């Protein structure tokens, strides 16, 4: 196994932290992201991480915790998107764009005001690449608790959400409060994205939210299989990404390791591409076999 696992990998505390945090975030992202992909809300899922930045900058300016700032910013952004948003995908896309544009403008203002204020409290800039490897135990605790809460809420919301996502009209006819369900879901997504954006960066947060569920939706048949597949693909990408990042340290004499964000994202994209290729060829073979 030495070709895969460089010696000492599991005795490395940072690797263990990274793998642990990664598994938790990948799991909750895969579960939440399945609906994001089904509802074609990828843009919102990504934009919320950027919108959260405005909250982070606001936190820097008004002096409260960046973590809270990120989550609050993300939640407010989600609320605004849903307030504007309509069910049609294209209009939701516009709503997301409008909120994203407004929020980045606000972030520009906050960051400018921070430059002027003499406070030495650092601002939280937009975090493209957080680090899986340096999550403190206390943040790990917060993440685990919030992740569990999100999963529970998702379970409670699951059935109407699925109904609304598959057929909003039929759901409305059955008396489901479609907009309220959509709002509740977007807020759940906002918490997930806001939290994972500050902990592991917005790039990884988007990749884990969208990639594995999209691949799973191509493969899976039933809801539970698809959910399980999404989680497995997400966790797999994180696990092997962590290992690849660790190993890459030894690939060059300069010890310039590949960032773990890159490794995980590359694996997620690879999974998606492979799944697409496999699905396409098997369908073609099925079709061919019956001629």
């Amino acid at each position, binding site marked *: 196994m030495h070709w895969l696992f460089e010696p000492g990998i599991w005795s490395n505390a940072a690797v263990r932290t990274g793998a642990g945090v990664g598994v938790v975030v990948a799991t909750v992202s895969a579960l939440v992201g399945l609906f994001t*992909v089904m509802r*074609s*809300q*990828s*843009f919102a*899922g*990504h*934009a919320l991480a950027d919108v959260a930045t405005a909250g982070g900058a606001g936190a820097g300016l008004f002096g409260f915790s960046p973590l809270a700032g990120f989550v609050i910013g993300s939640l407010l952004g989600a609320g605004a998107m849903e307030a*504007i948003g309509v069910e049609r*995908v*294209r209009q939701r*896309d*516009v709503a*997301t*764009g*409008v*909120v*994203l*544009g*407004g*929020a*980045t*403008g*606000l972030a*520009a*203002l906050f960051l*400018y005001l921070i430059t002027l204020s003499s406070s030495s409290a650092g601002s939280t800039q937009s975090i*493209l*690449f957080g680090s899986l490897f340096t999550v403190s135990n206390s943040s790990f605790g917060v993440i685990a608790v919030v992740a569990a809460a999100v999963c529970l809420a998702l379970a409670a919301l699951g059935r109407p959400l699925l109904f609304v996502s598959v057929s909003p009209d039929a759901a409305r006819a059955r008396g489901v409060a479609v907009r309220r369900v959509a709002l509740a879901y977007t807020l759940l997504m906002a918490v997930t994205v806001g939290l994972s954006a500050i902990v592991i960066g917005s*790039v*990884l947060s*988007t*990749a884990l939210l*969208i*990639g594995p569920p*999209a691949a799973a939706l191509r493969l899976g048949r039933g809801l539970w299989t698809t959910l399980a597949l999404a989680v497995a693909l997400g966790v797999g990408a994180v696990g092997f990404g962590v290992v690849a990042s660790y190993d890459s340290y030894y690939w060059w004499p*300069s010890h*310039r*390791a*590949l*960032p773990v*964000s*890159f490794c*995980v*994202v*590359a694996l*997620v*994209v690879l999974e*998606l591409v492979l799944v697409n290729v496999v699905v396409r060829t098997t369908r073609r073979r099925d079709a061919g076999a019956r001629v």
Partner: protein
Amino acid sequence: MFSSFMTNAWIVGTVVALLAGATGFFVVLRGSSFAAHAIPNGAFAGAAGAALVGVTPLVGLITFAVMASVGIGASRRHRSDVATAMALVMMLALGAAFLSLSAAYEPQVEALLFGEILGVATTSIAPVVIIASLCAAALAVMYRPLLFNAAAPDLAAVRGLNPQRLEMGFMLTLALGAALTVPVVGALLTFSLTVGPPAAARLVTRRPGSALVASMVLSVITLWASIAASYQSNLPVGFFVGSLSALAYVAARVLTQWRGRRV
């Protein structure tokens, strides 16, 4: 407000706002906001890659913007938003890998993407005008197919319109505009103008031609008002462009709702 140090900002700002208004009309119509966000932002990796191999960053920027647009355009058939998200994160992650491998201080890489409207050199006016005209010409040529494909894709396909080719053409236009105007005026500014005013414009008129013109006019007004407000208050232009663009859309929504039915 019209002092000499602001002259270039007014000129280039107006050109960029006109282009953003025109591109944005189709972006909103086709639901391509995500691509309009992803292409310029992901192009960052190209600049990082260029720094690593030692060519001029603009080459990298254009290469990656075009690669992204091809990636997004090619996988239009199912779930284009997933393809867009994946193209974006892959490019950003590549940027991280490039930065990590070069290990130098590379703030210029990002600075290149996040231009400065108050810092437009006289020499960059001509390239921006040329590129904007090229993009405008491309949009004019694709005007009717874009409209048709956005309104009723199935019917357009029946009439023999190749949606893939059209999407690719549109994405490449977006990429060209992004790669050359973003380093000058910044991603934030261009994106805000690309979504807010065009989304507002289509609510206030039902004629496609007027909507396109209204979109460009609203976009220019938004930008002018932002520069003026920024000059008076001494707050960043980006703040005003972002919030006024969003405001324009919200105002149009309120207006149409208040008038009862859409025009």
